[in-house]
């Protein structure tokens, strides 16, 4: 599907929400990742002896990254609470509603059909946030950003404001996802309104993750080779993996220095991400990531997102984002017309 605009709007909402709910969090001791991994299930092995993660997996969920303020301190809900939480999130997220008047209802419902219906359910373990560390389920407070980075951030914020107002000056006012350069194919993999599928391929010495969003295969060597030299940076960074028991541990470095590629505008020069993939059931992978960036967050934080196996009949299909990205021209020509009419 090709709807860069709508995913952008969601992106903006996420950013706004994140900005509003930055917590004054008490720091809690960190439970080790291993403590959260099921131990009763052993993943099948490939013929060459690696745990077998192959298949098409989907990470959609309505469970928010951060625990909503109104939910209190509870990290895991009981059945009744979970039902209520899920219903209230689904009500907010769905476009298929009848409470906005005819025009708004029709517009919204029209868009529901191409969005991922799986995004309306909370995680099976009934958590109130995808973040598991810190225990308050919130992104740690931001560090004091140095003035030069603040200046860049402010200029990006101005550009985003022009874009949100329908008056972008230039294509450079648009975010990388709108420009189809990178989207949720950049780690950490976070659920969004559509294209939440990932197909995992394995061959001796490699695990390869093909995200549905754009089409960049992340080819992960698991043969112990060193990272690219630090002079060579990439949009998706440079990824190396290793097996720790049945868990694939993936470290990614060498991100390009462009502003706005990484989550919450983290600083590519100091950003570090470790992802852990553990198959915990035939139809489920625990995807856990820890990000740290001492020049963005006051401490590392970790989220756990279940990946659920997709029915093999449901094939992943090409997502060509840039090729028909009419939106860019519509936004820009629309802005020029509005200027001519004196709207700015």
């Amino acid at each position, binding site marked *: 599907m090709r709807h860069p605009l709508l995913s952008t709007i969601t992106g903006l909402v996420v950013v706004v929400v994140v900005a509003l709910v930055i917590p004054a969090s008490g720091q809690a001791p960190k439970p080790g990742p291993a403590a959260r991994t099921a131990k009763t299930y052993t993943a099948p092995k*490939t013929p060459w002896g690696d745990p077998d993660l192959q298949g098409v997996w989907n990470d959609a969920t309505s469970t928010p990254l951060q625990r909503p303020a109104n939910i209190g301190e509870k990290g895991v809900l009981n059945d009744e609470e979970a039902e209520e939480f899920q219903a209230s999130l689904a009500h907010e997220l769905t476009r298929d509603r009848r409470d906005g008047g005819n025009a708004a209802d029709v517009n919204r419902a029209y868009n529901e059909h191409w969005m991922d219906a799986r995004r309306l359910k909370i995680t099976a373990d009934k958590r109130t946030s995808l973040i598991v560390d810190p225990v308050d389920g919130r992104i740690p407070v931001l560090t004091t950003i140095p003035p030069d980075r603040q200046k860049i951030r402010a200029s990006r914020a101005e550009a985003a404001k022009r874009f949100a107002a329908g008056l972008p000056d230039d294509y450079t006012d648009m975010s990388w996802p709108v420009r189809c350069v990178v989207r949720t194919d950049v780690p950490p993999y976070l659920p969004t309104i559509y294209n939440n599928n990932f197909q995992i391929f*394995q*061959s001796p010495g490699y695990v390869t993750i093909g995200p549905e969003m754009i089409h*960049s295969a992340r080819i992960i060597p698991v043969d112990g080779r060193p990272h690219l030299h630090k002079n060579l940076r*990439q949009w998706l960074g440079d990824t190396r993996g290793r097996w720790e028991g049945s868990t694939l541990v993936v470290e990614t470095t060498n991100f390009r220095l462009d502003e706005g590629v990484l989550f919450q505008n983290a600083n590519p020069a100091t950003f570090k991400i470790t992802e852990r993939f553990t198959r915990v059931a035939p139809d489920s992978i625990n995807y856990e990531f820890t990000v740290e960036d001492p020049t963005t967050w006051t401490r590392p934080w970790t989220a756990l997102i279940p990946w659920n196996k997709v029915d093999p009949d449901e094939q992943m299909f090409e997502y060509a984002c840039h090729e028909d990205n009419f939106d860019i021209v519509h936004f820009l020509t629309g802005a020029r017309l509005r200027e001519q009419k004196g709207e700015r």
Partner: protein
Amino acid sequence: MSLRRTIPLISVVAAGVVALVSFASPSLFGQARAPSGTQLPATYRAPRAADGHPDLNGIWQALVTANWNLEDHEAQPGPHPELSGAYAAGPAGQSIVEGGEIPYRPEALAKRNANFQNRLKVDVSSDKTWHALGDPEMKCYLPGVPRATYMPFPFQIVQGTSPYILFAYEFTSATRIVRMDWKQEAPTDSWMGWSRGRWEGDTLVIDVTGQREETWFDRAGNYHSDMLRVVERYTPASPYHLMYEATIEDPKVFTRPWKIRFPLYRRMETNVQLLEFKCVPFTEELLFGKFRKQAAR
């Protein structure tokens, strides 16, 4: 051993190898040597992958210049020699088309020639004519098949035990999933098409349908319609080579099916890996620059 004594010894060994090759060539190398190049051994049997089929895993790259033109072409200046001198100039190359020329229908040949004339033009001001002008490569579009195979970038084959083989290309991070022994037809058209594979002996045969009509075969404007069908054949020819062959069929554009054929070379650097060629940022100014707000009104 002194240098003086070594040289004659090497010569003797070399002469022996030449003699052996001459005598053994019919069985060891299949065909007699063609005058223009070396033949790959016809009897090569590739190591098996975990799925029991020939192991095609690796990073491969074509060395032909077909991305400039599938047919014979002379060296040519770049599009703006006044700006870039010899930098963007194109190399000469021989046709990879069996028989030399693509069997165009007459009206289709005219369109090919027009494509070439318009290869550097772009106009995205209307959704309806968005794709009408310009080489899709210049616009950083997914290149389609077979062009992805002979662009001057490597690609990686990821072959495990699942019914899927992944082809990942460095150019614009294009990928295609090859579905093995798959019945379902393409659900709709896509830029890289719908690839269904099968093994014929040691050859991986891929039937590619459902390709968007807007892709081109090369910078010379060679093109196809929405009727395109490409049947590719990847045959291991040595530990370091795959022979690539594709049969191209499109009754709207060509008078008959035609074939291209060239070897793919294994990339042998010890640290080789696919890197990124995310070219969208390289083409945005060309596509979208003219819609920018003008400084003074």
